[in-house]
């Protein structure tokens, strides 16, 4: 029998599985139970839907060694998120309660349960399903049935595993959880064996639990009396730059507005110099290189000044003597502006608050004075 090699490696396949789930369900609050070296957290943070990301592990040292890897990168400052993100790392035990991760949208528990003593499983289920009650929880564990396909393996796959369940054992446990805590479950896995071994199942078996809707009415404050017991220790907290932060929002908006108003100003000044009364941007002769991709995306940025209406994708402005009126909804078509402000109303509100910009009706007023010469 050949040695089985997974491509991509099995641990990566597990991560991709969780990330796929996040992409599909778009959770806001996510916790990784047993985060260890924070590798999964580092992949999760790139998902723009996530607003609160928590990692818990019993091993303080491994978190401390890796926590700075979750700090914002330089580009996170250049290109802030639209929604805020806070990342928190705790040292704590999964058989103890702490209100910091109650009622999250999603929890991941990847290759963790097999490291708990069987006697602790009961307490674990109670804390996770009965107290934390995340909306969705993903649990993965080795599939003992697959071990026969792993060449040269005697005993457990890892010295620290306290048990390794067969498909049946895992699914029985999962179905029992569903009954007791009112969840529903679907089963999946990653890591297929060679052709012909499908009945064995996946190398890693996965259960996705979803909280039943009816549950909310019946258990409104699950174990609320434990809410003031904080047994986890906060090791690290980091806030990512986002447009929800007033300073960052204002700076970014001023940045964009200044750039575009300067561009418009410059264009009008140049065109009046050349005696161009039509105010149309002249495009040079067509290039014979294939840059169709460029013109497509360029149309979003291109500004063609025209007094009369023109085709889609161009900014229309109106010239009134010495000033130019740019309709706010035209400004809102600029991609970057759309990212910063959620709506035209918000854009107007924000611009009204910033002194250097003048608003008249629903237009931004730009004065073309030749004061730079």
């Amino acid at each position, binding site marked *: 029998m050949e040695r089985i090699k997974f*491509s*991509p*490696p099995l641990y990566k396949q597990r991560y*991709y599985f969780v*990330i796929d789930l*996040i*992409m599909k369900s778009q959770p806001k609050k996510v916790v990784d139970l047993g985060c260890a070296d924070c590798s999964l957290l580092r*992949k999760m943070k*790139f*998902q*723009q839907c996530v607003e609160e990301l928590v990692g818990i592990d019993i091993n303080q040292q491994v978190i401390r060694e890796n926590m*700075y890897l979750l*700090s*914002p*990168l*330089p*580009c996170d*400052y*250049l*290109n802030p998120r639209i929604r805020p993100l806070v990342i928190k790392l705790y040292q704590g035990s999964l058989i103890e309660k702490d209100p910091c991760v109650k009622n999250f949208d999603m929890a991941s528990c990847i290759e963790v349960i097999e490291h708990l003593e069987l006697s602790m499983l009961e307490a674990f289920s109670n804390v996770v399903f009965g107290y934390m009650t995340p909306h969705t929880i993903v649990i993965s564990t080795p599939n003992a049935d697959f071990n026969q396909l792993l060449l*040269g393996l*005697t*005993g457990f796959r*890892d*010295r620290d595993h306290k048990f390794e369940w067969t498909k049946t054992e895992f699914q029985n446990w999962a179905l029992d959880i569903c009954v007791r805590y009112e969840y529903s479950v679907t089963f999946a896995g990653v890591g297929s064996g060679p052709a012909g071994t499908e009945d064995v199942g996946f190398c890693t078996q996965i259960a996705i639990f979803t909280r039943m809707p009816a549950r909310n009415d019946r258990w409104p404050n699950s174990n609320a009396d434990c809410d003031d017991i904080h047994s986890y220790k906060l090791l690290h907290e980091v806030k990512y*730059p986002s447009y929800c932060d007033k300073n960052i929002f204002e*700076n970014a908006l*001023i*940045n*964009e*507005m*200044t*750039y575009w108003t*300067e561009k418009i100003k410059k264009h009008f000044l140049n065109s009046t110099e050349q005696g161009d009364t039509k105010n149309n941007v002249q*495009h*040079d*002769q*067509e*290039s014979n*290189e294939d*840059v*169709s*991709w*460029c*013109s*497509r*995306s*360029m149309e979003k*940025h*291109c500004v063609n000044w025209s007094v009369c209406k023109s085709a889609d994708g161009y900014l229309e402005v109106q010239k009134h003597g010495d000033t130019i009126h740019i309709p706010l909804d035209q400004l809102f078509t600029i991609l970057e502006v759309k990212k910063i402000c959620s709506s035209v109303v918000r854009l107007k509100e924000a611009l009204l608050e910033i002194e250097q910009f003048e608003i008249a009706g629903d237009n931004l007023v730009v004065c073309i004075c030749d004061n730079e010469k």
Partner: protein
Amino acid sequence: MSMPVFNILPNPGEIDFVDLQCTRKTDNAEISLKIKMTSILPPNSNLCIPFYNVVLRRVMKILDFKLIGRNHYDPKRAVVLGKHRLQIWPGYSACIKRTDGGLYLTVDISHKILRNDSVLDVMNMIYQNGKENFQDECMKELIGSIALTRYNNRTYRIDDINWNMSPKDKFTLFNGTETTFVEYYRKNYGITIKELDQPLVVHRPKERSGVSGKTLAGEILLIPELSFMTGIPENLRKDFRSMKDLTMHINVSGEQHTNQLRQLLKNINTNEAAINELDGWGLAIKTNILMAEGRNLPAETIYLQSSAFKTSPEVSWTREIGRDPTLTCVPLTCWGIFYPRRCFDQAEELINTFVKVAHPMGLKLERPVRIELKDDRTETYLKIIHSHLVSEPNVQMIVCILTGNREDLYSAIKKLCSVQSSVPSQAINLRTISQPQKLRAIAQKILLQINCKLGGALWSVAVPLVSKVKYSWKNSTDSTLFILVFFFFMPNEELIDGFRVLLLASLQTYHKVKSAYWFLSDGQLNAVQQYEIPQLLKCFKTFPQYEPMLVFIVVQKRINTTLYSMEGEKFGVPPPGTVLDHTITSSDWVDFFLLSHHIRHGCDHLQRLTYKMLPAPCKYAHKLAFLSGKVLHSEPSIHLAEDFIFVDLCY
């Protein structure tokens, strides 16, 4: 600025052996490990220094600085320049060094310019400005710039653009799986690439030897949409007013400089996690900046052909040079000046000015042949220059007027003239000769350089040790020769062979080399001391009755030590000629810091001598090393090595 660092590590005690047992995972076999202590490193041993620098980087991370390249920057104090879509991030370059005075933390202020635009945005803007020559324009704008990737903390220099590939193409990962770029970024970073037809940007890392000794080369492909530009955009560089605006944010006075550094120290020493990190290695940073006493060398006298004068405090003697004849000069009769059509006026003006200033300087000059180019494309320059070189074998000098900062054109011209034809060349930036008020001074400077390149000597200085030391790039009459040699260091090539070849050639020609000057970079110091010096001494033995004194002067120009003078409480710039030869000097080399332009030299009794040699040789030496390595890409012919005329200072 240096701050003293203390290091106290607890005594490891008497531990000889440590026995450990563990189990191999694959087959549960029992493995035993024995760890034996072989030596105790003193805390200030050179081997510890890299560890300390790792600790330092951790400390900077704890203080929330972002590491970009080698320096640390603070995004929270970023200054946003909306008009130019730029951000300036203030920061520090910091490292721990061992010097004569102990362990020091060397820190300097640094600023990083980051742009809000991705590489794709820049391409779009180029397209918007004119569709013709789009690919060429992109190459010009982007190649050489540094890009910062969105998804990790890495910066890459853009070396090329691959127009034939797109994010839809596949590539192979380390573990052998194939994936498309789109899929890879989606899966690993959750990023959806929007523009599927964009070209890819190429980075070629420098070749390095792999573990088995094979050279590893490879290409890294980057997605323009996911990479941010850094550095000042090309169009901004040309806009003087905006550049002034920009530099206002970057340049700091002596006062501000020290304040910012003191602030960093304060931040480190008030952050508990940072202190703990340092403490773990027994390190602590003192809170004050180093004060040391230096001394000032007297001003030197410069000798020209028939006059002499003492240098002024500003160490600039252009006016005197312009007035009186230089020491020796070479008549320039057969030379050509190449310029694109639109520079006609400036070229005319320049030639007229040359004729006007040449006579008082004692330079014999005939009007050059004027060759007008129909455009300013690189191929045009090269073609015309080449045909001129072929048709005029006696040409002494090629002068070219360049429009804009054209590094590739500059390299190409140098390569053509120096390597392929052994003719000295001079490149002049159009901008330099466009201001009529400054034209006279500029023309004088250019003529001086040209004279040097042709083998003339500019000035000399009295030296107590040797009768006269001349600044001469080729001097067949006097005893002292100034040799400049440059090498291109391939990863596994021996330094010495190339040098020996050139040295032998020069010795054969001149027979009386009294001192040799070899300009190197910092990392090569040890190699030179251990291998090259003994080999060179052997080399001299091949000449009978010839025992010159060999002095190695290592010139380090790009150092990050700034010295301020302190008068009472005020900071100022120390006058040229200030020498500091203790405390912050290296304990491995006999050296000192010399302020002429912040130079550090490597030999004690030549302190004064090297002062006299400045500023010209150091300025040129640095330029030469830079030029050789970057531009010529191959060793120039031996013949040319005797003349050593390739340096340009494009102001």
